[in-house]
Every structure is written in structure tokens, then in C-alpha cells.
């Protein structure tokens, strides 16, 4: 009986997340343009891009790249379905990691120098952000008594009250998760960089379109995490959660436009330091106080 919400959630996520994610991506580009004193593309620009990519000629550097990317997309959607279906947060984190692994493999298998460097950096990014992702889930568990995301609806006060330190840590690694500057080491939407397009260098047409959709889904899921901490046993809280998620999204765009990319050493050390301090303190406080 536990599985039904997950299946429903996955189907709903598969339909809705690309729509929401696409609009968010369009908003991102529009806002970024405004911050740079430009007009910017239409809100639906990411949609046009993906539709165009779907119409491009189909070709790849090998036979397996497309399969890996399909797996990555499917597992990203499943991770979202588990999260929004009220399922286990850790399972969602793990399935998302699996999705990222397939994404990394797709880059490695091309054995193109730029892709490979991008893939190595992507793996490093996951290593940098994963501890905090686990700690925030544990903090949520300690605050609510359950690892299931639906437990948030049974709360008197939102989880943020007890987990705000870990939440701040999560905001920090959210930049890594969304691949925004200063942590867009593996690839970025900005042109002219030493890695060409990093992980996605060898991906084109349909495959690249899948990658874009996957990123939309990932972003929606990441913002879902933000919202989760603002939900309690009152329907109004959903509005609060959406507002909080949007605020976090705006913050990410602001950071993206104001920071230059850092070296991997700084990313790893800062992300781990934040995870250790924010995660450690919050978990300790919840356990012992």
C-alpha cells in the first residue's frame, strides 16, 4: 500500500516536473538577463530549445551513451516521484545519486577528453554535496520521527524550526546540486570555458534534450526539499512552502550571477566543512537537547 503513492507520485512528477522545471529554467534565464541589464529570452525559451534539440539529427559517439542518459532521466523522475509521493527521503536521495551516476557514466563512456574531465568533476561534486544531503534527511528524521516526506504534514510547527542550522547547510550545497556558479565545475550554461561543455560535450540532439529535462526535474526536486521544511499540518503551509522554494531559487540565481567559479579544492573543503558544522551541530542538538 506504500507503493501506490509512489507510483502515483512518479507519474505525476513525470508529467508536472518537466513543465514546472521548464518554466523555472525560463524564469532563471529571464532573471539572470535582467540582473545583467538585458531583456533576456522569453520564459518558454528552454522549451523551444528542447523541442529544437529533439528535431536535430540523431547521432552519438557510441551505442551506449543514449541508454545511460535514458536511465539517468528515468531514475531522476523516480527520485522525484518517491519524494513527492510521500516516500522515504533517503531512498529519494539514493535514487537521485544513481541517476547522477548514469549521467557520469554517459560522459565517461564517450572517452572524449572534455567529457571525461567533466565527469570526474561531476563525481567530485556529488562527493562534496552528498554528506549534507544525508545529514539534512537525518535532521528531518530527528525532528519528525520519520524518514518519509509525508511525515511533514503531521507536524504542529514546520520542520524548519528545529532544523534551521542544517537547512542553512543545505542551502549551501543547493548551489552544487543546481550546478550554479561558483560550483558549476562540471559544466555550465555559460559559454566559453576551458571544458567546452564539460559532461555534456559529446551529447547532442535527443540525448541533450533528455539531459535538459533531467535538470529540470532535478531542480524541481531540489526545491521540493526546500519546501519540505516549511510544511506542517495545515493546507496553507503548501503556499508557504512554494514561496520559500521560490525565494531559495531567487537566491541561487543571485549567487549564480555574482560569483566566479571556484577551484575544486575550495568547493570540496567548504562543502564538507559546512556539512560537518551545520549538519553535525543540528543533529547533535536534536539528539541531545
Amino acid at each position, binding site marked *: 500500500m506504500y507503493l501506490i503513492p509512489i507510483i502515483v507520485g512518479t507519474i505525476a512528477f513525470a508529467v508536472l516536473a518537466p513543465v514546472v522545471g521548464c518554466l523555472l529554467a525560463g524564469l532563471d534565464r529571464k532573471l539572470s538577463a535582467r540582473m545583467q541589464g538585458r531583456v533576456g529570452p522569453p520564459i518558454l525559451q528552454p522549451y523551444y*530549445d528542447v*523541442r*529544437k534539440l529533439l*528535431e*536535430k*539529427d540523431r547521432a552519438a559517439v557510441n551505442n551506449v551513451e543514449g541508454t545511460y542518459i535514458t536511465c539517468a532521466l528515468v531514475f531522476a523522475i523516480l527520485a522525484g516521484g518517491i519524494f513527492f509521493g510521500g516516500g522515504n527521503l533517503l531512498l529519494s536521495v539514493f535514487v537521485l545519486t544513481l541517476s547522477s551516476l548514469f549521467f557520469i557514466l554517459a560522459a565517461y563512456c564517450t572517452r572524449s577528453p572534455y567529457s571525461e574531465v567533466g565527469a570526474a568533476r561531476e563525481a567530485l561534486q556529488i562527493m562534496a554535496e552528498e554528506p549534507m544531503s544525508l545529514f539534512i534527511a537525518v535532521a528531518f528524521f530527528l525532528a519528525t520521527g520519520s524518514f518519509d516526506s509525508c511525515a511533514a504534514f503531521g507536524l504542529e510547527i514546520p520542520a524548519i524550526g528545529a532544523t534551521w542550522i542544517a537547512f542553512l547547510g543545505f542551502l549551501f550545497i543547493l548551489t552544487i546540486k543546481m550546478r550554479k556558479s561558483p560550483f558549476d565545475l562540471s559544466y555550465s550554461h555559460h*559559454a566559453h570555458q576551458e571544458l567546452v561543455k564539460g559532461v555534456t560535450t*559529446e551529447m547532442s540532439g535527443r540525448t541533450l534534450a533528455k539531459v535538459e529535462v533531467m535538470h529540470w526535474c532535478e531542480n524541481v526536486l531540489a526545491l521540493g526539499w526546500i519546501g519540505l521544511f516549511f510544511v506542517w499540518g495545515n493546507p496553507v503551509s503548501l503556499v508557504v512552502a512554494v514561496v520559500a522554494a521560490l525565494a531559495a531559487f531567487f537566491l541561487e540565481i543571485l549567487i549564480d550571477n555574482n560569483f566566479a567559479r571556484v577551484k575544486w579544492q575550495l568547493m570540496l573543503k567548504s562543502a564538507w566543512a559546512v556539512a560537518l558544522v551545520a549538519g553535525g551541530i543540528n543533529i547533535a542538538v536534536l539528539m541531545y537537547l
Partner: protein
Amino acid sequence: MAYFAKSPWVIHYDASSCNGCDIEVLAALCPGFDAERFGVINTGNPKHADIFLVTGSVNEQNISVVKEIYEQMLEPKVVVACGICACSGGIFHDCYNVIGGVDQAIPVDVYAPGCAVRPEAIIDAVVEAVGILEEKRAAMKNGKEA
């Protein structure tokens, strides 16, 4: 639907330009003209690009580079020769090493002359190129169905 017209991703290659036209290409993409309004993105990766902007003439050294970038772009694709050197070799046309315009190496779809080519002219050429892109897509689709 005309998605190619709404999302023309470009790649820019400096064949043997004096850098005058290169500056103008970048100017066209900068906030002043804000080509992203029309969905233009400078990808820097032939596998992602739809429109190939070449500046400068083709010579013995770079002809193979131009050809390789062109070949790595996926169909449908369009080439824009930016500046008079890219169109015909310009003032360098009778230099010992210069082969000539870009069309000596690859098929060129749009010629945007000028020394240096103005950003307005480049944007104009891209708009022209987008139309050709759509035509090529239609041809590709029909070819597949046929």
C-alpha cells in the same frame, strides 16, 4: 513548429581574422544587442550548435579545422561567413597562404560582408540563417518520410 527559428545556437570560429570581426561577433552577443532575446546562445561546441559563424579567410593551416568543425555539427546546420575576409578573402585574397573565402572549404549559406562586419549585419545574417535552417529541417523531414 518553427523551433529552429526560436533557438538558434551558434558556434564562432576565427579562421584567420584580424580580430576586428571577432570583436563584432562578440558585441552582437553582448548585453548591448542581447541576442539571447531571440534564443541565440554561443555554445562553443559544434555538437550543440546550429549556426556556424566564421570570421576571416581560410588558409592552408586552418582549412582542416573549419572542415572538421563543420562536419561535427549535426544536421540541420547553417554556415554564416562574417566579414568580407570570410566571404571572399578580403584584402588578404592574394596572399601566398590564403585559399579564399570560407566557401572554399565548406558550403556557406549566408554572406555578411563588412570590414569589420557590423553587429546589426551579423544579427541580420543570423535571422536569415534561421530561415534557411527551417528550410533544411523541412527538407530533412521530407527526406526521411520519402
